[in-house]
């Protein structure tokens, strides 16, 4: 990939037509600005001053609000680890509820916690928070004893699987994982730091990541999920294996520390799914949402597909994007990783499994937000 990477940012020559259009735009701006300054100079200055004062006042209020939020947050005990709170955003009440229900496990609060930590070549890795539902596991691990020296950290290899303790049958999982960088999405998909502050870039225009906490520790977060719609993770035992630790730059890994950190973690068997019959079409497509199984942390949609699908060249399923709550709050970027597909070759039924980027109170969901494959339009499908 080295050759390809060089080509992606190879120097280009700006074509004449691009330079002409750009210069036309710059000239238009120059003309308009000169005209404005000549004809309405004092009026514009007055308006600009009022705009600036308003912006400053809003910024000051925003500053106060942020300080207030941090102060009150410090007074409330956060149950989940930093990385899990950023990966699966939640209120303190939601964290408390899921932990009390046994859906979330906060490992440091358990006895014999120190037995679960693994140290290899001076680096200690320990499980922190584990959240399980039928199809997805969210796991965070705390890493201490490793100095990133300002670079993006990475494990060389990571493997996640689950085993059925009764039959000893093993099941591979798909997973998305990374070192937690302190960057989260708000409800509109806009990125910000987990303390609510705006993103910052360095002198090379690269986004600054906040990998370490106040103790200099890192966290690694994993979202793992079944590879088959019919599989379940509940009550299984997770096996997580990390190999070697180093740095990563544009997907190229450089090894720093040889090591193996292996974990066997019993998972919750508590089901948190709610099944809702929907029976509503995704407008303009051959897909009808038959039913959904929603948990606080994931969604399963089941579709019926009409025969019309066979006349389509593109048989891609619609994409679940998010939800609308009963109070009108919209989460259009709720959906994260997962799988989708047809149940068999007849193309009469299809499904999608999707994790969330924040905890949802299932009883508060009023509608689904779904995007058809062939157009950039988010459709709202009300739940009965």
């Amino acid at each position, binding site marked *: 990939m080295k050759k390809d990477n060089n*080509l992606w*940012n190879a120097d280009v020559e700006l074509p004449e037509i691009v330079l002409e259009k750009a210069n036309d*735009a710059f000239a238009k*701006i120059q003309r308009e600005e000169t005209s404005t300054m000549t004809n309405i100079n004092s009026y514009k200055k007055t308006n*600009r001053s009022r705009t600036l004062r308003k912006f400053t006042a809003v910024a000051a209020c925003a500053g106060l609000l942020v300080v207030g939020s941090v102060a009150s947050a410090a007074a409330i005990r956060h149950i989940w680890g930093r990385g899990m709170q950023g990966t699966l955003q939640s209120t303190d009440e939601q964290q408390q509820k899921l932990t009390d229900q046994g859906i979330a496990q906060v490992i440091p609060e358990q006895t014999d916690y120190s037995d679960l930590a693994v140290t290899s070549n001076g680096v200690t890795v320990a499980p922190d928070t584990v959240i399980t539902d039928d199809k997805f596991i969210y796991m965070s691990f705390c890493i201490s004893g490793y100095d990133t020296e300002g670079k993006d950290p990475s494990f060389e290899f990571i493997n996640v699987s689950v085993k059925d303790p009764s039959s000893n049958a093993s099941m591979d999982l798909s997973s998305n994982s990374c070192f937690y960088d302190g960057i989260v999405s708000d409800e509109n*998909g806009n990125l910000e730091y987990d303390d609510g502050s705006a993103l910052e*870039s360095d*002198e090379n225009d690269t986004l600054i990541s906040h990998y370490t906490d106040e103790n200099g520790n890192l966290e690694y977060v994993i979202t793992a999920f079944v590879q088959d719609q019919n599989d379940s993770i509940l009550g299984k035992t997770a096996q997580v294996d990390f190999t070697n630790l180093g740095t990563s730059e544009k997907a190229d890994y450089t090894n720093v520390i040889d090591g193996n950190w292996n974990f066997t973690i019993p998972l919750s068997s508590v089901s948190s799914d709610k099944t809702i019959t929907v029976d509503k079409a995704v407008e303009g497509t051959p897909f009808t949402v038959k039913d959904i199984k929603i948990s606080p942390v994931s969604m399963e949609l089941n579709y019926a597909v009409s025969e019309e699908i066979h006349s389509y060249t593109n048989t891609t399923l619609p994409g679940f994007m998010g939800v609308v709550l009963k109070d009108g709050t919209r989460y259009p*970027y709720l959906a994260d990783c997962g799988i989708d597909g047809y149940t068999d070759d007849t193309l009469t039924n299809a499904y999608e499994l999707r994790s969330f980027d924040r905890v949802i109170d299932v009883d508060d969901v009023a509608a689904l937000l779904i995007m058809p494959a062939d157009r950039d339009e988010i459709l709202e499908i009300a739940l009965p």
Partner: protein
Amino acid sequence: MKTKKEQLELIKKAKGHDPDAFTTLMQSYMKDMYRTAVAIVMNDADAADAIGDTILACWEKLETLKNNAYFKTWMIRILINNCYDIRKQKERLTSMDDYEEMAVTDESNLEFKELLSILDERYRIPMLLYYGQGYKIKEIAELLHIPISTVQTRLDRGRSKLKAYYQAERNDHHEKR
């Protein structure tokens, strides 16, 4: 290349309606804008239109930018939206095959365009933003309004397709010998 401090100074001045500062600022991003635009619209003429529209839009909306350090991402987002608008307009008038073939008449930057043409747009745009522009996966998800997992999947598939393409090229080359 301007330092970060110099860039922020330019943005500050541009926000104060200084057209010279704005022009200098935008010119420093012209090549990045061109690479991104041509990856979506696949021809120089439409890339030029998208860039021109973006320059004007950025000038009009610059006061809405909350964090100056985030300028480039904000600008690229406007550019991507303009590129898709132009494509939608053209798709109503021509078939997709005719549209993408327009690129063959462009004579500049052929090696870069050949790279783009190997991949379907679902893969080439995340690949360009990741490898060409250095955006992180979360940033790409935000720019393209797709889930983070989708970005990861498309990067995986883009890499596999490129690997297969170059492998096939090497095999053809050996056979010809």
